[in-house]
Structure formats: C-alpha cells, structure tokens
C-alpha cells in the first residue's frame, strides 16, 4: 500500500511564511506536496474557527505559519 498522503491546510502570513514559501520555490527546495496554502495578511487573521472548519471538512492536518 502506498504511504498515506495527508492533506494539510496551511495558513501563511503574506509577509513572512508565504514569502518564505515563495523563496523556497525560488531556491527550488523540494518538500512534501501535502500542503495547500491559504494566504492571509497576517497569521493573526487565522480564526481558530477556520481550523476547526477545515478539520470538519476533512483535512488531515493544519499548519499556521506567521
């Protein structure tokens, strides 16, 4: 059986983590393709309700990076 590939929602701050993620792309760093990012202007915008909602919709994990 294939290894389980979880689906993870990531809330990324536009100025920090999202930029870091872009830079990772620029540097062509390879990492697992499980993360689906949602861009927010700041991790402060991430209402815990979004996370709970995501789990209710069936994501396997969540990541908040500011």
């Amino acid at each position: 059986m294939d290894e389980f590939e979880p689906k993870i929602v990531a809330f990324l701050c536009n100025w920090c983590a999202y930029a870091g993620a872009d830079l990772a792309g620029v540097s062509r760093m390879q990492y697992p393709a499980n993360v689906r990012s949602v861009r927010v202007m700041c991790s402060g915008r991430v209402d815990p309700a979004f996370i709970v909602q995501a789990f209710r919709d069936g994501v396997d994990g969540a990541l908040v990076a500011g």
Partner: protein
Amino acid sequence: MTQQLLELTGIGGDRLHVDWVSSAEAKRFTEIVTEATEAVRKRGPLDVSKYDLQLRAAEMVVKGEVMRWLVGKQHKITSAGDVYGRPWKEEKLQQVLDDALLREYQKSLIYLAIKSGTTSVRQVAEQTEIEVLRVSYLLADLEQKKLVEFTGMEESIPVFAAL
C-alpha cells in the same frame, strides 16, 4: 489553545502545527512543512465522521465569547494586569485558560448532545464521555446562560432540551 482543543476532541493536537517563519527562511519553511506532514502522516487519515460532535463543539468554543475574551486579554492581563491592576503570572493564566477551555468544550459538547436529541444526563454523559457529575454541573451553567432548559422528569430522569 486550538491545539489543546484539538487534543480534547480526540483528533490530536499535533494535527495542527503553529510556527514562525520569516520571509528569508525558506529552508525553515520546508523543514516545518516536512515536520508537519510527517506528524500528520503518523496520525493517519482523519475520519471526520467519528468526530463530528467533537468538532462541532470545538467550533462553538472558538467562536464563543469566553475563549475569545480570555485569549484577547491574555497580553494585557500578564503585562498590565487585570481589572484590579494585578498582573498575572503566565502559568497562572495558562491554568485559567486551560480550565476555561475544557469547561467551554464540555459545555459545547453537552449542548450539542442535547440539541441532537439526547435528553437525559446519563445519556449525555455516555455520549460525550464526560462524568455524570460533571455533566450535571455544566448543565446548570448552560441553564443559566439559557442555552438549555429543564423540561421535566421522565421516569425519574431529568430531561433537558436545547434552546
């Protein structure tokens, strides 16, 4: 806070990762993603249907005033002090937060259980896996907030309904 809540729901707190990455830390970003992925992978797939009640309760908690207030005031209470001007120690506040979180979560669970048609304290306790005594105690709280009401006794069992 949300991590603790997730732990309470049973899906596991480590399904949520919170971290800080600056715009220049591309390497760190990849590490975090890798870590998060590995942690979730270890947890295995999430069967949402098993946790429907729990997650709905969690949603109530995070949208509820109590936790928002507590979290929102956290900084002020620890640095500037509470309404009486007493700065709280972080650990103490954390304890309060933890308690509040548990209480709010359990209350939400009970409320949702009753709302879904479960009526007696014992049944609620079974369904929510909370001790009967605790259920009774929290029910009183819920009654006070006018979220549930005591509708009467059926075969000597108190019956509640969600409002």
